Each structure stands twice: as C-alpha cells, then as structure tokens.
C-alpha cells in the first residue's frame, strides 16, 4: 500500500504554521482574550496565511492591476474604429460569396440579409498615431496616443452568453474560472479590506449569463468576483441589520472572535483561524466599502472630467470608482456596460440607440485613462476595452439598420500597464470582414494579459477532474507587439 503524494493543501500548511507559531502560547492568548485584555493580543497578532495573500509572480510584472471595460453585447467596430471606405462604396450590394463561404452566423436560419452596409459615421485620424476614430467617440479620440488599438481581434463563439463566457473564462462551457479569479488565484490581493475582484455594472440590463461571467468555477469561491451595486449597499449584506449600531456590531464581532479562538484552542483546527481572519476582513469591508463609493472627497473638476454625478449610477461614475479601487490595491476590476447588441430592432439600432450607448461610455472611459495617468496609476494599471465579439460588415434587413454578431474581426483597445501607447495593431480586409495580420484571438489576449501581470499562462494551472486546467486551455500566443 502506498500513500498518495501529499497535495498542496492550505489548511494543512496553516495548521503546521499554527502549531509551530503558537504551540505554547495560544492558551494564554485565548485566556487574555476571554478576559478582555486585547492589548495583550495586539503584540501577538500577526496576519494568518490567507488564500488572498500576495504571491510572487513568475517573472517581473509590467502591470499590477487590470480594469476591464466590458462592452456587453458586442460593439460595432465598423461604426467606431475600423474605417472602411470600400464598404461605403459597396453599400447595399451583396457580399461576395468568397467572404462568407463555410462560415456560421447567429440567426443564420432567418431571413437576415447578406448585403453590405456602409457606415453613416464620419471618421477622422487623431493624435500622433493618426488612428481612425469616428465622430461617436470624441473624448476617446483625444486619448489615442495613450492607447493601443487592436483591430484584428478574433473570437470563437457567436452567441452572446457563450461568447461572453469565452472572453471571461477562455471557454464557452459553464463552470470554468473567470480571468479575474485566475489572476487573484495567481497573484493574491494587495488589498486587505476589499475583495480582490470587483464587478461594476451599468446600462439597461445585466450582461447575459449573469454571475457566471465573474464566477470562480472550480477555483475556491474566495477568488470569485464580487459585484458592487450601483445603488444601496455596494456589497450584498454589507450593512448591519436595522437597529444594530456600529458599537453593537463591534461588540458582537469581538465576542464571536473570542469564542472562536477558544474553540480553536480546544480543537486545534487552523480552519477556525481562517474564519476569524474572514470576520475581521468582513468588518474592514463594512468600514471601507462605503468610503470607497462615497465620492464627496472627489473634486468638482474630477467629476466634470468623468461627466459623473456623486450619487447617480452611471458608467462614468463606475469608471471613477474603478480608479478608486485600483488606488486601494484591488487586483481586477471589471465594468460591464449594456447594451451594444445593435441588430437594428427597437432599442438596438445603429442610429439613435447606438449614439446613446456611445455617449454613455465615451467621456468616462477617456477620463479614466487621463485620470489614471494624472495619478501616476496608468503605468501599473492595464485598461482593457472591448466586447465579446464585433459586428458584421453586412446589415440586417430590419426596420432600422443593424449588424449581426461577428467573430472574425473586431476591435479592442488596451492602455497602461506596459502596453505600448499610440499604436494601431492589426488590420482587416477592405470590407472589414476578416482580420489581416497580427491576429489576436481571445486566447492570445488572455495569454498576453497574464504575461503583463508577470504570469506565464502555461504555468498558471489548477488541477481539477484529472487534468491541469489553464485560462488559455491548450492555446494562447503572446501578442508581443502590444507591449514591446
């Protein structure tokens, strides 16, 4: 009979730690605590090993944090960044068969047209880089020299929920950990009083798929994204119940800790210490999260830069909160804004509806880059902008114009955290259908983001159901030109 090789196990490690550290003195500590002599404890108390404790990188990192501005629904690159005069010229004509042979589309079985649709937007070159940006993004046009625009992004799945999962987890299947979870698993968190992965939402509805987009999959739930809410408590159950004062809450917490400590002594179970630490963290979150979203200390000039209101929920306000989160050391912040699903129907056409959603994000996202830069945070903070896919050069045959989901070429942009500013990477063919050069598949983007954080995507693994899983599965090539 052979014993299986011991697997790394946190409770076991902390239990050893607990015995070596406390062996003799713990009974005394518990007793001191019981008698209310907490000052005695102060000298002894050291932070316990915690799953979110900061961990070393695989190699020197260029970025510490990520802010991912997720444009849920799939924004049309052809109305924003990917300028195609030829498409305008051929407006209304059928797309040459050679482009679409063998491709699958969403709504493929319906009567949606395959005629080319030119854009009505006016494009101009901006900044030193001369990047094309349309008139819908006037603020963003002003930051092109701080960002790197990638026009050759590619995805695998063309329906919203699976594609969104793919962008977040590297797989269209449910149950895989999201990027933010992987990153917190790999790096830990540098913030002692907020979660390491925070999600903020704006727009008319939640993103498709919901909480699985920031789920921790098979990783421990410690690493899952915590949605902060636009109104009410920023975190579920953050407020004490009605009638419970701060003093009463503290007295309650103190008693819970003392009794838990006593049990820890009796049972020798290190897991109780983790729970004591979790309660302390919860108490700090109760204190710090309201402070986080309290924008009274932000100047009028800052609010004006973002176009944000101190109270009213909006994407712009979330951008400002994102900056405050990375200031506090939160590792991964994800902002979702809906709705970019511009099929052409009511509420989702490429005319007024699209203009509205562009207006909702333009100023805030540009302000975020400027503000991070002004605070000296941009060098450590990697900002990512994009949706789960892009839109087709063909227009859909509906009452107002719209475009279908498209995975063969779409645009994302990146800034800060080691990203080379002021460049446009990759291109598309003359109709904007296929990516040409510097193709950046979602897996490649994941590999590159991890790389900038100092993590090798092939070494960041978790053993589950008989195999080592990775964010990039068995894929992923670094997009070296993005940062070198």
């Amino acid at each position, binding site marked *: 009979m052979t014993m299986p090789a011991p*697997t790394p196990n946190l409770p076991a490690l902390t239990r050893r730690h607990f015995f070596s550290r406390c062996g003799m003195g713990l009974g005394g500590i518990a007793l001191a605590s019981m008698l209310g002599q907490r000052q005695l404890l102060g000298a002894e108390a050291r932070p316990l090993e915690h799953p979110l404790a900061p961990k070393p990188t695989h190699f020197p990192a260029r970025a510490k944090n990520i802010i991912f501005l997720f444009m849920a629904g799939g924004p049309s690159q052809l109305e924003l960044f990917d300028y195609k005069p030829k498409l305008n010229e051929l407006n209304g004509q059928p797309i040459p068969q050679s482009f679409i042979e063998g491709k699958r589309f969403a709504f493929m079985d319906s009567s949606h047209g395959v005629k080319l649709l030119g854009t009505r937007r006016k494009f101009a070159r901006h900044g030193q880089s001369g990047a094309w940006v349309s008139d819908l993004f006037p603020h963003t046009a002003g930051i092109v020299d701080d960002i790197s625009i990638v026009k050759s992004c590619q995805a695998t799945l063309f329906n919203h929920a699976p594609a969104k999962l793919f962008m977040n987890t590297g797989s269209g299947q449910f149950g895989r950990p999201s990027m933010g979870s992987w990153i917190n698993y790999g790096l830990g968190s540098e913030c002692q009083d907020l979660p390491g992965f925070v999600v903020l*939402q704006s727009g008319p509805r939640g993103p498709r798929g919901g909480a699985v987009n920031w789920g921790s999959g098979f990783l421990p*739930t410690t690493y899952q994204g915590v949605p902060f809410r636009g109104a009410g408590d920023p*975190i579920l159950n953050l407020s*004490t119940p009605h009638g419970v004062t701060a*003093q009463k809450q503290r007295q309650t917490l103190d*008693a819970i800790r003392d009794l838990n400590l006593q049990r820890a002594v009796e049972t020798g179970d290190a897991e109780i210490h983790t729970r004591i630490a979790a309660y302390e963290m919860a108490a700090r979150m109760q204190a710090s999260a309201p402070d986080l979203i309290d924008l009274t200390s932000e100047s009028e000039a800052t609010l004006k830069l973002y176009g944000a209101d101190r109270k009213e929920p909006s994407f712009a306000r979330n951008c400002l909160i994102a900056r405050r989160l990375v200031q506090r050391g939160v590792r991964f912040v994800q902002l979702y804004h809906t709705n970019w699903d511009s099929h052409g129907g009511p509420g989702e056409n490429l005319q007024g509806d699209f203009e509205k959603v562009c207006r909702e994000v333009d100023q805030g996202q540009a302000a975020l880059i400027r503000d991070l830069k002004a605070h000296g945070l941009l060098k450590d903070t990697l900002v990512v902008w994009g949706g789960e896919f892009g839109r087709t050069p063909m227009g859909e045959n509906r009452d107002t114009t719209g475009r279908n989901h498209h995975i063969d070429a779409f645009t994302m942009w990146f800034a800060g955290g080691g990203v080379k500013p002021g460049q446009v990477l990759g291109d598309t063919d003359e109709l904007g259908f296929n990516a040409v050069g510097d193709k950046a598949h979602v897996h490649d983007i994941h590999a590159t983001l991890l790389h900038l954080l100092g993590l090798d995507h092939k070494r960041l693994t978790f053993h589950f159901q*008989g195999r080592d899983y990775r964010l990039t599965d068995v894929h992923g090539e670094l997009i070296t030109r993005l940062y070198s």
Partner: protein
Amino acid sequence: MGSLFHRLTAASLLLAGLTFAAEVDYLRDVKPILTQHCVRCHGENKIEAGLRADTAAALREGGDNGSALRAREGGESLLLQVVTGQHGDIARMPYKRPPLDDTLVAKLRAWVTQGAPAPADEIPGRFEHWAFVAPKRPAVPSVARREWPRTPVDAFVLARLEQERVSPAPEADRVTLLRRASLDLTGLPPSPAEVTAFIADQTPDAYARVVERLLASPHYGERWARPWLDVARYADSNGYSIDAPRQIWKYRDWVVNAINRDQPFDQFVVEQLAGDLLPNATRDQRVATGFNRNTQINQEGGIDPEQFRIESVLDRVSTFGTAFLGVTLSCAQCHDHKFDPFTQRDYYRMFAFFNNTVDDGHGRSNPGGTLAFTDEMPPKDASNHELETARAELERILDGKRDAILAWLKDLRIEAKVALGGTAREALEIPWAEQTLAHKRALYAAYQPTDADFKARAAKITRLERNERKPVTTLVMSELPKPRDSFLFIKGDFTRKGEPVTPGTPAILPPLKVADGARPNRLDLARWLVDPANPLTARVYVNRIWQQYFGRGLVETENDFGTQGSPPSHPELLDWLATELVAQGWSTKAIHRAIVLSATYRQSSRVRPDLEEKDPLNKLLARQTRLRLDAEVVRDVALVASGQFNPKLGGPPVFPPQPDGVMNLGQVKREWKPSTGGDRYRRGLYTHLWRATPHPALAVFDGTDGFSACTRRLRSNTPLQALTLLNDEQFYEFAQALAQRVQREANGDLAAQLTHAFRLCLARAPSANELVRVTQLYREQLATATGDEATRRGEAWTVIARVLLNLDETITRE
C-alpha cells in the same frame, strides 16, 4: 529470495556501469516494464503512433516511426531513444509521467543489445489499472487491538494504523457524537431533548438505536438527496443567458423518496438512466429519467438549436462518466484520452446511447419530453369558472359564423393563406368540427380583424388564461421511434462529422450484454453499469459516501479513478465496501450503518499534534475531521435553532428572502417574491435554484449551480460568508426568533438561559470560560440598551443569538 536477487542485480549493474549481464530474460525482466509503462497507450485499446508494445514482435515491426528495436543511424533503437529522452522529435516516454529508473532502462538496453529474443507464441500484454479490474471481496484483516473494531471497516483502518505504529483517537464525547450523526444522517441538529435522552441512555446499543432512528427519519432522504442532486446537476431553471424557470422538482422529490425507502442502488440507477424503457414503466420510473433532463436549455434568439441539443447529449456522456464510472470520459470528446484507455470512438459510442431522445436544443415541448400530472391540479377558483364560461360563449358565437368563415376561406388567394399566422394556417388542414377554439379564434381574427365584440371577448379570455390552472409537469427522457444517426465529431466539433458510430461501451470495461442482433439502448447500458462485474460503479458510489463522512474519499480524486487519479489510501477497505454494497442487495443504508457505527467514524476530531508531521491530512484516519456544513445545512441549522423550521417534505421550490437586487445580475430580471408563511422556513434543499442567479446565501457557502455534475463541493471560508451570517435579513430574523425562543423556553437564571441557547445552536452546554464571556456580553448589552425592561432584554438576547449563530462551531460538524 526475489529481493535478494534484485539487490544483487542492482549491485552488479552499478559495477558494470549500468550495462546488463547476459541473464536478462524477456518475460521475467522486460515484459513487465512494457506492460506497466507502455501498453496503456501502445496496446489493444489505444495504438498511439501506430505502435503496439504488447509483444516483442509488435515492437520489432514498429509503427509510424519504424521499428522500435532496430538500431538507428548513429545511435540506439527508437525504444531506448524515447525512454531516455534522446529523440529529437518524440517526447520522452512514458509520456508526461516520471522517467523509467536507470535499472529498468538498463534492462531494456541489455535486451535490445542481445537481439531482443522473445518467445514466438507470446500472448499480448494487457494494460491493467486497479480501478478497471472488478473488486474482489478482501478478507477482513486481523489486528492486535481486537477490542477496538466495531464494524469490519475498523479492522481495515486499524490494520493500517498498526502498520504505521499510530493509535486511533479516543471516541468523541456523546454530545459531539449525537450532533455529528444527526447532521450527517439528516442534515439537522439534534434537539436539546434528544441530547438529554441520549446522555441518559446507558444501554450498550443506545447509539445504534439513535442511528436507526435517524436512518428512518424522512429528513434522511432530504439530506442524502442533496449530494445526488449535485451529481445530477439539478436546478429549477434552464440556464444559459435566458435562464427561464423550469419544472422538474418532481424529479427532486423522486430522489428524496427513493433514498428514504432505501431503493436498492442498482434499481435507483437503472430507473434514472432508463426508467422510460423498462417494461410497463410506471409514472415514477419515468419521472426518475429527469436525471438526464437536468441539462441546460438555450433559449437565446439566433442560436442553432442542433448545436445546443448536441451540447446536452455531450453533457449526458460527461455526467455518465463522472457520476457512475468516476472517469474523465469527456477528455475523449476531441481526441483519444491522453492518459486512460478511452478512445474518441469509445466516447461517441456512449454518445450514441443518449442521442435518440425527443428533446431539442431550444426547449420546445416536444410530445413525450414532458410528463403532466393531470391528477394534480390546483382547485378551481372563480376566475377559472369565468374562463370556462367565456370560452364556451365565444365558441358558440364562432360556430354560429361557421358558414361565413368557410366561405371567406374558400375565396382566399393562396398568397393570403401563406401569410396567415401559424395557428390559422394549421386550421386550414382541419375540418371545422375538429378544430379547437384556438383554431377558430385565429381564423376569425384573420377574417374580421376589427370586430369589436370579438376582440373584447378574446382579450378577456387571454387575461383569464394567465391565471389558468395548469397541471404540474416534469421533464423526462423519451426515445424517438427511430434512433438518430450518430457520428464521431472530428476534434469534438459537431459541424465536422467523422465515422458513423453505434451505441457501445468502452473496450477496457466488461462487454455489454445485448439480445442477439438488437441495437443496444439506454436500458442495456444501465444494466451493464450495475452488473457486479463492472469494476467502477460500486466503488465510485461508496467512495462518495465515505467522502461525505470524512471530507475526503478513500480515493481522494472522487471523480477520477483513472490513471491520473490518486490511488486509494485504503484499497482493501474500498473493495470491501464496494462488495458489501452488492452483497447487501445494493442497500445504501447498509453502507451508512457500516460507516456510522464504526469506531473509526466515532473518533474525536481534535487535531493531533503528534501526527502533524506524519499525517497532516489525516489520510490514515487516526481521528475524525471537522467539516464546515454544506450551504443548505448552514441554513437548516440556524432555522432549527430559531424554532421556525417547517419540516414539510417535497413540493414546488420556495423563495426564502434574499437581498434586493440579486436578480438584476442575470440577463433577464426574474422575479423573486419572498415566500410567506410556512414556505419561508423550509430547508435549503427546497430553495428555488436559478442557475444564473443562485440564492446568494447558498452560493456563498459553495452551493452548486447546476451547470455540470458536481461530485464534491469546495469548502471555502470567506469574508462574504461572514457578512451573510452577520447581516443577511433572514439570518437576522433567525437570531431574533432564537432570542425570543430562549426567553420563552428557559426561565429564571441567566446561566440556565445561556446554557439553553448554547444547546440550541451547538447541542452542548457552554464551558465556564464561554459562560463568563457571554454573560459579560449580555450585561454589557443590557446596560447600553434603551426602552423598557422587556425591550432591553430582547435586544441583549438578539445580540447573544447573533453571536451563537455566527460561531464557527455552529456551522461545523465536529
């Protein structure tokens, strides 16, 4: 003798600079190396690179890269090159496993150098992995401490401990033991009265009788249904982005009932996999097939329904592998399994069993896919009567206009007919007398779209229909009259069909028995699974039961019994339990008894400093383990302590309160109207499980989400759990109710009241230190509270109750 020989050989090897003397014998020295290290991927089940290594002749003949034995230009044979990692293009073998010892390599080299002599009539070597060989009933080992074992389980555990010179832990105290057994068997804590009775009962079989009482409790079925429902990926919604609600709770209730009546596990499995195919299948047996209808359904617009129908079939294969065989079959979806002897073809032969049911990828209600309980209708109310009257009146009016409608139809041009809506177009094919009211309505609406009286009546009916009584339904498996053709999908991509496949089981496992010439179906598959010759089914099941009791299975990788999984810590014990299950007529309760009555189970869970170095993970089982309760039980314990617990069994899912805004997190905002009355206080098992937005108090304690088969829950320990227990509306409600209960039930003396409160939450009385601490807290609260005496007491008690419900011990089974 053998080992002496080995040592001598090893010594001579060293002396000879790792070359081998002439005594190497193929069958004795070489073949075992090949069988153990090579044949898994180069044998009859899988022929990687076209090469077989199960006979010397096959090695000589070679594969895609030529003979494995012939010396290569400027160097050694391919065999030696790959095992030493010297080949430029081929990875070092064994692939992704530790390299062979130098002594083994030396044997291979000596044999090849000798010209690789081997018998001509060699029988091919077969890869053997312990889990793929049926368990044999092991003898119960003898032990030195004969008085310790209480059930055969203990003999296996103690034999190992004695071998390691470790003594077992003392038995847990009686209160801990009762709370442990109650939580493990029913998921509910013992009442103070049960604790008192148990302590007072000094008869030798007191504990055994408690175990019988708990096994007979209907709550036993609820508690043990939960891990099975995790495996079955049960949920009350369709998943994906739309996540519409679904009715399949009849399946959940079927599981609870089956477990409560200790339905033999073989029947339990057969009914879930193929209840619909049993001769004269009962309604219950069809309900059981809901197991494989717990797949997600994608109702998003624009999808290709066939893609998502196939997704659910793939899920069924993957779940079958995980749930019953404990192997990672899904690894073979895109390519042959990298480590286990399952080919991609094996995978799609399994796929072919599940590919023939009526359900589609869009969740349309195809005939046979849904079972309606027409005998379980809610009682009629006034609005139902009104609806019936309104329908009868409209039908009478429309019948009166029959001739006019038919005349209009007769003159209708073909283009106009094509433009009619679905129902009206359907009506064209049906004689008036056989048309439903819906048909007649649709036709008339097309004929006279502006008739105000008709419109008013139709609108009224539509309004009343919202409140129409509908029978309870549940999703079931239902076979198509003619099976679909199944294919291997190249790289797992359903748009790339490869060779056609027929239903079949993996070649490494015992053969499937089918009547001559018949095409195997799910029923054959189910019976194959529960044939005692199947090496995996019973082992995988008893291992998961064990895992519930000790936090870790005897095979730690409970979902991977393949070559990448951990070997069992106690192989004979695993096999004894597996064969015992079959010997006891597949009685699950018999396995529970064997474990719960054992001395091993009854040990104290205190951490043993003396074993910190030797056995930090407690794999030797020289003590019990403290386990944080499952999400649902965290709720149940507080609910019972509060005195609000509603013990009702079964029925539709319920909606206990949750913080506002949770449902906004899904794509479609679903309503969450908190249940009132008794349904507010049901067990966590009955909470409506939305896949996209699970109840946060369950999710935060690692409850399952129903996306895929879950064979083991994580036990995380996070600040969000603390916030839930501290601040969540319902947990605060429990604290207030517990505060009132203590004041109501315990009189007088503060110490007695506090003791009662401890016993309601922890089953035990407080220690002297603890009593001092909570007394201090109570006085502190009473002093700072305002209002009259009763109000101040109430406030102070609520604080005490909140502290107790938040203790680590309260949410832990010790």
